[in-house]
């Protein structure tokens, strides 16, 4: 296990990069997924169609393929940038489809009567959603959303494999392949790094679940 201790700064950098990917991925897919979720229940048919297509494409495509498209497809159509951002983009496109479905099922868990009452009072679609439906939907959105986010954190390793460089996964590769260190301790360090993110994340989610469950 000396290899972990010796390379602690390297691991720390890796952890930081992974955290960055996850943070951007989290914010991006939450925002995009919520908008898409609203699309899916919208009274405007083309918006519903966009939402549905999005989910069908990105939920059914392996993340690796989505990332290939971002990393190699986007430059071909003239969009250039760092691999880091291509990676984050791919992760957001992919994860937002799952967030969208969690949000949509949360919205559907609120009884239709609530939405009807909101509309009958004269609230428009956006107001009904933000003042009446969403506040009641969070309760059932948080648990599935938690799983989606944990999955996203783990999926960030695939982004790392695309040469973002310096994330936890890349640290593992560098130490074991490039420097020829024994794989077992190196990868144990990598795994520990992910657990450092996912376990507190899971605890935070559990706390959040209890909090929204109490709130009416």
């Amino acid at each position, binding site marked *: 296990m000396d290899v972990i201790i010796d390379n602690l700064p390297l691991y720390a950098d890796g952890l930081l990069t992974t955290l960055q990917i996850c943070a951007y991925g989290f914010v991006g897919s939450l925002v995009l997924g919520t908008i898409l979720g609203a699309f899916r229940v919208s009274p405007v048919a083309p918006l519903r169609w966009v939402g549905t297509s999005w989910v069908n494409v990105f939920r059914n495509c392996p993340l690796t393929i989505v990332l290939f498209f971002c990393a190699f497809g986007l430059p071909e159509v003239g969009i250039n940038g760092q691999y880091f951002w291509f990676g984050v983009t791919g992760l957001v496109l992919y994860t937002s489809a799952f967030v969208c479905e969690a949000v949509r099922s949360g919205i559907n868990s609120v009884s239709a*009567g609530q939405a009807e*009452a909101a509309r*009958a*009072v*004269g609230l428009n679609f956006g107001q009904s959603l933000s003042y*009446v439906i969403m506040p009641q939907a969070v309760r059932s959105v948080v648990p599935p959303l938690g799983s989606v986010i944990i999955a996203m954190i783990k999926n960030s390793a695939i982004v790392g494999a695309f040469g973002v460089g310096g994330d936890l996964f890349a640290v593992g590769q560098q130490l074991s392949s490039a420097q020829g260190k024994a794989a077992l301790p190196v990868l144990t360090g990598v795994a520990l790094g992910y657990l450092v993110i996912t376990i507190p994340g899971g605890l935070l989610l559990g706390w959040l679940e209890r909090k929204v469950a109490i*709130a*009416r």
Partner: protein
Amino acid sequence: MSTETAAPPMIKATAVNKYFGDLHVLKDIDFEVPRGQVVVVLGPSGSGKSTLCRAINRLEPINSGQIEVDGKPLPAEGKALAALRADVGMVFQQFNLFAHKTILENVTLGPTKVRRASAAEARTLAMELLERVGIANQAEKYPAQLSGGQQQRAAIARALAMKPKVMLFDEPTSALDPEMVQEVLDTMTSLADEGMTMLVVTHEMGFARRAAHRVIFMSDGEIVEDTNPNDFFTDPKSERAKDFLGKILTH
């Protein structure tokens, strides 16, 4: 009298048809509700009463025909429809109070978000209305903490807070325990006495006799009779109405 004839009827439905798939639930419906009138809609289960009521604020879109509220055809989706709904109060069988908001918040939400009233104005109005329906002391509670009758009165206050031109009631007492029916009917009766235009779907024959100016009897998606309550209850013209009254009154 002259102003009454000059102003358009509050609700006017012309040749309205509505289908659920192959099921023809509203068949060539024509009727008017003049301002200030209380119209009770009666009819057996499945005859299309709720659908008719919900069509008036477009919670249920219709397939053909025209519905006008206060002289204006119902708008399609969008801002104009939201504005129309704000002017048409609706009370549901299942109350549908916003479960995550207090009674007071339920009543102030529409005025603040739709009418852009200040929080203070909305609160004053809400407390007045809650006082009027007799549940001012419940203002800070959540819907689940109230009895059914109290919830339905809160729902009436919520609708009234929008200062509606007309109120729609879809079986407002059908989900209530028997001992709570009267308190809700009393609230509705006093509203009727104050001159509110009302369309009420109900099975409460007592309310129909006492408070209604007119009775519309529906069966199988058609308006079979449209007359005053006295004539309807003492001298129904159609077989279907006789049959319906026979069943109701033997209960």
